[in-house]
């Protein structure tokens, strides 16, 4: 039997509770991308003209990992604010608002699923 991979994207809603570290509230991941950045250097995007915000790193054991955020996810919305056409700095600001303890993200994730095709002859 031969193996095939299907690639499709799913949308996830992820709720991250910020962790207080001293004076800062951290989320535990890093972002890359933005309309003022170079989209061709983004290793996670499928379309190299995509200027959206992507998750480039997730710290182990951090609030983002606990909430289920994965590396390579594209962030579409943060608390209802659109993140597909924002600059890098605007994205950072929207995620690190001082008076918010919880952020609700809408992310798009590419998954590969193995589909095994059964051979006709048994």
């Amino acid at each position, binding site marked *: 039997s031969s193996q095939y991979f299907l690639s499709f994207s799913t949308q996830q809603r992820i709720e991250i509770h910020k962790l207080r570290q001293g004076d800062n509230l*951290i*989320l535990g*991941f*890093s*972002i*890359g*991308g933005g309309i*003022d*950045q*170079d989209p061709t*250097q*983004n290793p996670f995007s499928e379309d190299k003209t995509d200027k959206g915000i992507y998750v*480039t*790193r997730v*710290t182990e054991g951090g609030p983002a990992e606990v909430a289920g955020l994965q590396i390579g996810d594209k962030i579409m919305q943060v608390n209802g604010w659109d993140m597909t056409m924002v600059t*890098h700095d605007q994205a*950072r600001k929207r*995620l*690190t608002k001082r008076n918010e303890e919880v952020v609700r993200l809408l992310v798009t994730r590419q998954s590969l699923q193995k589909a095994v095709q059964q051979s006709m002859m048994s």
Partner: protein
Amino acid sequence: MSAAMDTESTYSGYSHYSGHSKKAHRQGRDRHKSPRSKDGSRSEKSVTIQTPPAEPLLGNDASRAEEGQDDNWGETTTAITGTSEHSISQEDIARISKDLEDSVGLDCKRYLGLTVAAVLGLLVFLTPIAFILLPQILWRDDLEPCGTVCEGLFISVAFKLLILLIGTWALFFRQPKADLPRVFVFRALLLVLIFLFVFSYWLFYGVRILDSKDTNYQGIVQYAVSLVDALLFIHYLAIVLLELRQLQPMFTVKVVRSTDGESRYYSLGHLSIQRAALVVLENYYRDFTVYNPALLTASKSRAAKHMAGLKVYNVDGPGNNASGQSRAMIAAAARRRDSSHNELYYEEADHERRVKKRRARLVVAVEEAFTHIKRLQAEEQQKAPGEMMDPREAAQAIFPSMARALQKYLRTTRQQQYHSMESILQHLSFCITNNMTPKAFLERYLNPGPTLQYDRDRWFSKQWTLVSEEAVTSRLQDGIVFVLKCLDFSLVVNVKKIPFIKLSEEFIDPKSHKFVLRLQSETSV
């Protein structure tokens, strides 16, 4: 037992110590002689050498038959059997006979053409003068007096004739550099044009002026001036047709030598095939490395081995199926797994290594030899009168120390035929005179140079035949192929037209060069 087993070849009767062998060489040879003879006596199969050949490579003196054994001026050991000295190959005979018969026939044709042109030119040049002088001689008394106007016209005729003379001398009076197989079309055209032109002028002059004894001298002089003007215009036409038209490049020709594949590209303008062949040949002597038959022996032996590998037996009867046989041979050869590519690879690698080694030894030997020579300045020349040498003697003094290394290198690269000892000595004294470094001296020997660099006897390429499917006076066109054959090899010439180039312009404002920084930053939140 040893007497029966020993195979001795004695070498006799072939020494000619020429009168001008220098003492230094004899010393050099004697130095090398002793170890070799020791070797000779030790082995079972021994070769006894009676006398070493002294300078068998004498340049001009050497006959054709001795060309095979001419590289012994650095060493002393050769065994030569009696039969190979005086054989002349078939090719040599063909070459000698061809040289003889061709030199006689073409000269007549060339001189005939030249004399016709010269006579015509002289006639044409004297015509205006005759036009002016004849009325004065024949009916002087009847002529109308013609004052300053005529004198002005005389001066202008004189100067125009002078300019025409200088121009004709510059354009036409040159050493013919080649013999072309067919007549040069443009030149013939111009000659015919000039002839018709002058003939018609004479006709008119004879009928209208001589017969009727015209008295208007000013008109006659103006007629002569118009002739000179027209001749100057024909000269202009000659320049354009013969010299200018071919200057603009229209074709690119690729010239490939058939024996070793060396190729070059040249740009040519509008020329006939024979003139293009002439240009190619002129450039051949300068650009192509000299044809060396010794370099082709390796591929020939490989080819012979391929052919000898298979034999075909006809089992089915006397029916002679030749094409079927050859096809079967080719198929069998393709299927056979031979390792000749392996041989070739290792042989070439080995040869390269050997050449590099010998080259290193040669460079070191020459550098060391050159350190022994020092140029004397003018003041020093008076102070040390004892040991002064002229360049030739200096060359002969340092030559023995590099002779052996040079000879070995030339033998390895199979160039020994092209350099006789005399030519090497001459080159060495030339380099010493001109303060050249050892590397400059060696440049001539390390790489094979163009044919012009070598002695005429070694060229293998003096008599050329143009083989072409089109007429040789027709113009060059895209796709024409013609072959220039000489006795040993041929040059295949392929003509391609230079493509029509469409060039368009684009204006860039210098202020429009602007740049932006593209980043990909990563921020942790």
